């Protein structure tokens, strides 16, 4: 039955003859291991195509959605990490195999007549493969992809004459964003594959026309047919290659995904994929003015020379040229290897790079955690807002930038301390500590103008238990809802009968005014109604000089106000939520200041001291 069907199909299509022309091809001098590279390359290309098309069913090319969709592939979809990892390691594998293939061709002098044209197709495939590699790892639009895109397109833009225009065309404007991604995506999944298939087809057809390059005196070995002798060698070698790819994939747990692209990050240590490291390192040896020599002239000269090799074969003595070609290729490889090692060594010895990398890794971990967290998730505005809406990341960064020049946080600041330590501000612990010793550096020890609390401490009659109660009472202010007035709050349950109420009114109330509750008058002091709550904090940050806050200070002692121009709404919200510890936390980490990536400044200093 099946035979009949096959018979019929063959009759109509002649597919058997086609297969036979491949499988029964005679190999002069017999099957050989050194013939495997071309076929293995084609097979790995096929794997790249399959895994690539699979990911196309899940990837979404836009600056808002690219990272999220890759995260979804990696972390949510079945075997998504495996498929993506295979594609990732497949790219590296192709690079390695290409080098071997090239070596094998040069060593056997297979660029010679009549194979010149095929040598050129091979070079075209080399260029295409490198382009694939470069457009591919930018698509996730993570930090790595974003900065790599920037570097790559700026190299293009640095080319003389048309460079800047070419760059604008590739980027899709002057800003990196949606158009950049759709263009790179179009290149990676349509334009390059089509060119690749055409070149590969021509390459294979020509290779078959000329046959494999036989050894010097093929008569010494019996000829064999392609199937199964050579096929077996191909498949066996491919198995080893795929085995390595799969093992790498399993060991590494798939391909990496950095934190979402953040154009504002100042210290992301951008490094290309390892196969571009040599080029990257070479650029360091060129002064900026001559950058285009390193990035454009040298690579294209190398390509041009390779292109000319079969033609030179006619002018120069063949043996001499062969020697030159081999020496040249090995020299190039040696040079590339040297540069790669140099780049790796330089990074390993650079504490600043290590520190920046550590921060980038922490941001990456935090981003993945937030994306999966039920309390966070990727917001509709896109993955770029994942960390911008995270109090732990963004709130802390904003606090550090705007506040820690005067305030400290957990004993650390960026300048000389002239204001209170904000660690736990608004919490019971903070209040209790203040009541215990207002003169401590964590409180008002560094703020001479805030002498009121110290004066109070000297004459206070409250005992430890009463201080505990007052701390409880004041800490409860932070939980007063935004829509409650002081009047309504006073009659709400739990306020009048709070054990801290009496002592507060008696002692604190002599200076701090809460309308309808305490009189104040002994000394100027800020109002404490809803102290530590979102509304109190935002008013304190926006208008510290308001009459109900520190309006009584002379200008010099006043905290500077941070209006919407100095501190955007999101920054303010994030700072306050950070102070309130209002953010999801990775299991196994502690609140505030201890999570990786948060102790930024502190670690910078530590690093400086160490090296």
């Amino acid at each position, binding site marked *: 039955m099946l035979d009949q069907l096959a018979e019929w199909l063959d009759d109509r299509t002649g597919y058997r003859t086609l297969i036979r022309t491949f499988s029964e091809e005679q190999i002069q001098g017999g099957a050989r291991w050194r013939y495997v590279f071309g076929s293995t390359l084609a097979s790995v290309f096929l794997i790249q195509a399959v*895994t690539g098309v699979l990911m196309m069913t899940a990837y979404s090319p836009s600056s808002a959605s690219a990272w999220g969709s890759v995260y979804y592939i990696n972390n949510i979809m079945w075997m998504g990490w495996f498929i993506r990892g295979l594609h990732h390691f497949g790219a590296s594998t192709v690079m390695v195999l290409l080098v071997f293939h090239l070596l094998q061709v040069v060593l056997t002098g297979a660029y010679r007549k009549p194979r010149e044209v095929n040598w050129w197709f091979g070079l075209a495939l080399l260029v295409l493969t490198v382009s694939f590699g470069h457009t591919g790892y930018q698509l996730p639009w993570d930090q790595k992809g974003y900065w790599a895109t920037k570097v790559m397109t700026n190299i293009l833009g640095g080319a003389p004459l048309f460079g800047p225009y070419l760059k604008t065309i590739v980027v899709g404007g002057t800003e990196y964003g949606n158009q950049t991604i759709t263009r790179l995506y179009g290149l990676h999944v349509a334009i390059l594959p089509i060119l690749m298939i055409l070149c590969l087809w021509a390459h294979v057809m020509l290779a078959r026309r000329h046959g494999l390059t036989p050894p010097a005196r093929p008569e010494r070995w019996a000829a064999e047919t392609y199937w199964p002798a050579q096929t*077996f060698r191909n498949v066996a070698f491919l*198995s080893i290659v795929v085995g390595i790819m799969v093992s790498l994939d399993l060991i590494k747990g798939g391909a990496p995904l950095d934190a979402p692209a953040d154009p504002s990050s100042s210290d992301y240590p951008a490094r290309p994929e390892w196969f571009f490291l040599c080029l990257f390192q070479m650029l360091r040896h060129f002064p900026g003015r001559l950058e285009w020599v390193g990035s454009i002239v040298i690579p294209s000269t190398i390509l041009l020379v390779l292109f000319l090799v079969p033609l030179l074969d006619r002018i120069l003595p063949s043996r001499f040229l062969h020697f030159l070609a081999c020496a040249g290729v090995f020299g190039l490889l040696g040079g590339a290897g040297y540069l790669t090692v140099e780049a790796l060594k330089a990074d390993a010895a650079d504490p600043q790079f290590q520190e920046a990398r550590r921060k980038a890794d922490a941001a990456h971990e935090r981003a993945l955690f937030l994306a999966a967290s039920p309390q966070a*998730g990727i917001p509709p505005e896109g993955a770029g807002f994942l960390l911008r809406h995270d109090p732990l990341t963004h709130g802390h960064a904003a606090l550090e930038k705007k506040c820690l020049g005067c305030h400290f946080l957990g004993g650390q600041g960026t300048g000389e301390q002239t204001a209170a330590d904000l660690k736990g501000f608004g919490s019971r612990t903070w209040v209790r500590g203040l009541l215990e010793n207002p003169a401590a550096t964590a409180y008002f020890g560094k703020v001479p103008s805030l002498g009121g609390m110290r004066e109070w401490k000297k004459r206070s009659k409250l005992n430890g238990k009463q201080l505990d109660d007052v701390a409880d009472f004041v800490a409860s202010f932070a939980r007063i809802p935004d829509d409650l007035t002081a009047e309504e709050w006073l009659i709400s349950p739990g306020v009048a009968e709070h054990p801290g109420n009496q002592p507060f009114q008696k002692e604190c109330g002599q200076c701090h005014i809460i309308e309808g509750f305490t009189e104040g008058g002994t000394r100027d002091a800020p109002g404490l109604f809803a102290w530590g709550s979102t509304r109190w904090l935002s008013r304190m940050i926006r208008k510290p000089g308001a009459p109900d806050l520190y309006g009584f200070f002379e200008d010099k002692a006043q905290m500077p106000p941070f209006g919407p121009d100095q501190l955007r709404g999101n920054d303010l919200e994030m700072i306050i939520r950070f102070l309130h510890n209002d953010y999801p936390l990775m299991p196994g980490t502690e609140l505030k200041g201890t999570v990786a990536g948060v102790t930024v400044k502190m670690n910078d200093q530590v690093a400086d001291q160490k090296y």
Partner: protein
Amino acid sequence: MTRRDFYRYGSIVLGSLIKLVIAVPAVAFLASPLRKRGQDAGEVAFAALTSLNQLKVGVPRSFAIIQDQTDAWIKYPSEPVGSVWLIRQPAGTKPEVIAFTVECPHLGCAINLTADGKSFLCPCHASAFDFDGKPQNQVPPRPMDRLDVELTAEPDPQVRVKFQRFRTLAQERIPLA
């Protein structure tokens, strides 16, 4: 086994192995939507839609269901995800309010009222239902899908509905996980 046989079987076995290593994950990848996600599979909560006094006896009114929505990788807070018809029943009957999802049991279009407001009619393939949700013609495979309703204890109780989706075309009411 000759050398040639060894090559032949070797090629076939190794070749198939490589294909499997790619094909199995590929199938799993494409079948990913079958995977139940923690958040989606979680308990559906009741959501308050209106208070009882806002409803007139025997007059259906439709209400949008607002829920947090997870669309693949993005989390949308409070998005409309569907709507329901609420019909208040005459005083004394139990339950006091009936809720139907607007989703047609036929192929999922949104069921509307007829022009005269006396019965339900689906605009797609003309499934017709009365106010008890009973089919009035041959098109729908089953009655309109009732949703669980809860009334709070206040004097003017809140009407709370548990929003669910059901498999279309089935004779039975099968909730989608």
